[in-house]
């Protein structure tokens, strides 16, 4: 029997690995997981001994094809209540309450087709990674591009995996911009995402692309408004706002 997506249930932490100095991924085994769609999230609940509980939502980073577990990628927020606990206290074998999968709006599946244009700021890349991983397995006929804004080179989440996806020769391109500092010899963009950058990144895909934008509100508003001006149909632009302000 598949559990209801809105019922809380216990997952077990199966694996933990670092993505960047402040971002960590957690593999969770969830009994009776009904499967998810790329872009969906789960709610996670921590409850203290005195009954105080706090909920947060985290996008699912793994593709639906990965069986037996889901992966969450969590940025450590210094003054947060949940992410420092996940980063500092949780170890494999621990049990964590989750509910989900949640959300049908910010979802892309191979059957929807493309081309697929993804725009991310910081940890906004997480739900888009689920889409790219899903595409790499079952949607390679859909051309895809990811425009990804990070502050520093060391903060690029999934950097090596994105390099591999981009060099696979199957129609995926990854375009980075580093807004705060760049390593020597950096030949990518060095500014915040703007209309010209979006235009240049979108050009190979054309104005019929399906677009998914995830990041801080300012980035999402800038990108969504620019894509409308560039001729993308508004109903093909899906947005998810979150994250620390400023990049």
């Amino acid at each position, binding site marked *: 029997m598949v559990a209801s997506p809105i019922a809380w249930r216990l997952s077990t932490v199966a694996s933990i690995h670092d993505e960047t100095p402040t971002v960590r991924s957690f593999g969770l085994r969830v009994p009776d997981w009904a499967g998810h769609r790329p872009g969906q999230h789960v709610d996670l609940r921590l409850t203290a001994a005195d009954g105080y509980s706090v909920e*947060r939502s985290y996008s699912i980073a793994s593709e639906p094809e990965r069986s037996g577990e889901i992966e969450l990628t969590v940025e450590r927020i210094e003054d947060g209540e949940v992410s420092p606990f996940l980063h500092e206290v949780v170890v494999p074998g621990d049990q964590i309450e989750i509910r989900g999968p949640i959300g049908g*709006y910010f979802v892309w599946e191979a059957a929807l087709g493309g081309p697929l244009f993804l725009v991310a700021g910081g940890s906004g890349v997480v739900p888009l990674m689920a889409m790219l991983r899903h595409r790499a397995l079952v949607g390679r006929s859909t051309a895809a591009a990811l425009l990804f804004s990070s502050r520093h080179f060391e903060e690029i989440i999934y950097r090596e995996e994105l390099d591999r996806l981009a060099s696979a020769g199957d129609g995926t391109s990854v375009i980075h911009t580093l807004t705060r500092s760049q390593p020597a010899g950096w030949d990518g963009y060095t500014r915040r995402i703007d209309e010209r950058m979006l235009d240049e990144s979108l050009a190979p895909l054309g104005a019929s692309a399906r677009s998914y934008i995830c990041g801080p509100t300012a980035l999402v508003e800038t990108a969504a408004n620019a894509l409308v001006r560039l001729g993308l149909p508004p109903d093909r632009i899906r947005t998810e706002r979150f994250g620390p302000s400023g990049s």
Partner: protein
Amino acid sequence: MRVPARFEGGDEVLDGNAIAGALAVVFGSEMTEVPERCAHCGTVSLLAELRAYIRAPGTVLRCPACNGVVLRIVETDEATYVDARGAAYLRFERR
């Protein structure tokens, strides 16, 4: 009172997609692709597209076009209150 915060350290303004879990609990099903018509300006939006203010007492969802309040959700220990007077309608597809 529980705060259905989507992300830690996040912006003050999120969107309806960010609180999809809380909406699903209140309404009993996935709500992000449900259209509503704003009672203030008449704009039709998906619930996912509404602006979500989660730092207020409860959760306030506002129209992305006119910023009028569409839905207010307040949870107490005993019950959940939904103030929907800012929505002319919610439209549920017959399945």
